[in-house]
């Protein structure tokens, strides 16, 4: 086997890992879409906001320091203590739950029964709001996220595969962080499935996803369910934020991963959790392999920007509801 083939395999492996990261973001979308029919564009910004909050708590930053300084002429920046990671994660979760509650109370509740496009626009407005709010609260500088997940290439995998290729092949390079992300994603999905299958709340969630009105009529409170769903997707956003933040620093571009998750959703179907995972893997592998085989050598690179969308477009022409989406039935 030539070294080139093994490079291909390495690209494939890395694609799988990237795909897992996409799936993490896509999961949050699916959860909210299933439960409330809202296409939540703010999911990416939620990940950014969660990551910012986590780092802020860890480093003991004073919230709104910039704003306070600008108004009162003070010079605040840090409390001067470091918070242990697990405590910071706990507090961040509380913030995300509070956020879910506020969104439900002040936005969603007033937009019940509006057309989907209006709801979608509202989440875009929400995304703008949170983006500015997060920056106001924690400052807009690029922050380093360190929650104790090992980073750098996995030496064991590299050494144990180095013999495969020839002289100039040094084993497969896979980032430890990506492996951990895959493990976390697996745990997350399993626990989400367990939660929705075996708990009372989970059953209520599925009932709401099936039919809003029927769920209401058997006494399930839509509002509570929505708060729960937004909290869960806030949690998923936190996990995604930790992973992406550890990988590339906590900064504005983190919110753009929402745009990466969209084609994943289209491929998998908006309503399917397994769809989000498999769609993520297809997109991750597809775009890395395309870049490796066709994009970089022939098209001048950076095809990752649009490949996923084009793939989704072509795919949807043949199967308009995605891989696992509910069949679209149209009646007059």
């Amino acid at each position, binding site marked *: 086997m030539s070294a080139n083939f093994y490079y291909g395999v390495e690209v494939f492996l890395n694609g799988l890992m990237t795909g897992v990261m996409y799936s993490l973001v896509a999961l949050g979308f699916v959860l909210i879409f299933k439960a409330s029919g809202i296409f939540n564009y703010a999911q990416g910004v939620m990940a950014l906001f969660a990551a910012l909050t986590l780092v802020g708590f860890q480093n003991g930053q004073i919230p709104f320091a910039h704003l306070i300084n600008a108004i009162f002429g003070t010079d605040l920046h840090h409390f001067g203590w470091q918070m242990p990671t697990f405590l910071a994660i706990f507090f961040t979760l509380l913030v995300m739950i509070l956020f879910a509650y506020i969104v439900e109370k002040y936005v969603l509740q007033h937009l019940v029964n509006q057309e989907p496009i209006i709801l979608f626009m509202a989440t875009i407005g929400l995304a703008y709001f949170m983006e*500015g709010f997060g920056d106001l609260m924690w400052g807009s500088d690029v922050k380093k996220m360190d929650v104790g997940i090992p980073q750098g290439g996995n030496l064991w995998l590299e050494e144990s595969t180095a013999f495969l290729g020839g002289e100039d092949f040094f084993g497969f390079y896979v980032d430890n962080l990506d492996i951990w992300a895959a493990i976390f994603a697996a745990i997350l999905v399993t626990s989400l499935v367990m939660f929705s299958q075996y708990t009372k709340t989970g059953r209520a969630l599925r009932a709401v996803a099936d039919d809003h009105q029927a769920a209401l009529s058997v006494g399930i409170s839509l509002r509570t369910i929505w708060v729960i769903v937004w909290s869960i997707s806030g949690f998923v956003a936190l996990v995604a934020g930790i992973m992406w933040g550890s990988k590339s620093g906590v900064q504005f571009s983190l919110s753009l991963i929402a745009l990466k998750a969209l084609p994943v959703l289209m491929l998998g179907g908006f309503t399917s959790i397994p769809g989000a995972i498999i769609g993520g893997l297809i997109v991750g592998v597809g775009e890395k392999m395309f870049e490796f085989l066709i994009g970089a050598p022939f098209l001048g690179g950076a095809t990752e920007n649009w490949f996923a969308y084009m793939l989704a477009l072509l795919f*949807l022409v043949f199967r308009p509801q995605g891989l696992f989406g509910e069949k679209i039935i149209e009646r007059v």
Partner: protein
Amino acid sequence: MLYREAGDFKTTYAKDQQTFPIAFDRRGYFLTLIIAFLVVPFLVNDYWLNAILLPFLIYSIAAMGLNILTGYCGQVSLGSGGFMAVGAYASYKLMTSFPDLNMIIVVLLSGGITALVGGLFGLPSLRIKGFYLAVVTLAAQFFLVWLFNKVPWFYNYSASGQISAPEREILGYAVTGANVLPWVSYLFCLSFVFVLAWGARNLTRGANGRKWMAIRDMDIAAEIIGVDPLKTKLTAFAVSSFYIGVAGALLFSVYLGAVEVGEAFGISKSFLILFMVIIGGLGSIFGSFAGAAFMVLMPVLLKNIMVGQFGWAIDLAAHFEFVIVGGLIVFFLIVEPHGFAQLWSIAKEKLRLWPFPH
């Protein structure tokens, strides 16, 4: 008292079907036109032109374009930024390849080219609907921006990858380039806005517009009563892209002068135009103008207040702007999901009964 149909007798069908059936509206419309064409050019200066008037005029064209597609034909598009880029690069290539070509023709041809591209990306709309379509139009957005970045032919192999508009004249006055007089570029854009708005209004209330609305309201039912979905959707995509392409060409050649594609025509531009359409009102030409005015004026206003009055740092003001813009969008959607156009028509209804509402 002033705002009544009473006493205004329509004696022909043409009169009965005019855009402004109420005399007061008609007078207001002509007054606005007179002020816009004959008074403003004498008053306009560089600041007003570049901060408010030009962006307003150009974005209203883009908003009208998107409104035709999304508001009248019901196809949500997030690719407007990409289509504006097509218009801009088409006008650049035309201006540099044919230096003697009249600017008006350049802009119209750019619109035409964008219409072709838009029609192409509109093809999947026959199979893909709703949100799926919205996300698919992002394919156009990202692919087009990537294309203009990566293929040097589009930016004439310039080292910076930017395109910049050469100087072109109409009737001896420069309309693009560095030596443009404020009133010339204002009138140039205003003329396009006037003609295109007039066209849009008449297109949308004619046979085409009714077909678009039928497709929007329920495409299967429309198909059953004999509206051809292929033709209808594609004409909507083409006409809408024509408008957006013209806006892109004007934005590049008249307003910005030099453009880097990812920065000027990125995804945020698509969202900006969608905001204009939604806040202004879906399915309304007036709404496109109102939305464009709102989205252009508000950041200017906020910036003036926060940086000018409070003396805050610019980055802080920028964050605050995000918070306020986002908050206002949510607020507007909650209070009036049908936008300014709806507020406007409610106001007119009230005005007809005023001062005796019972």
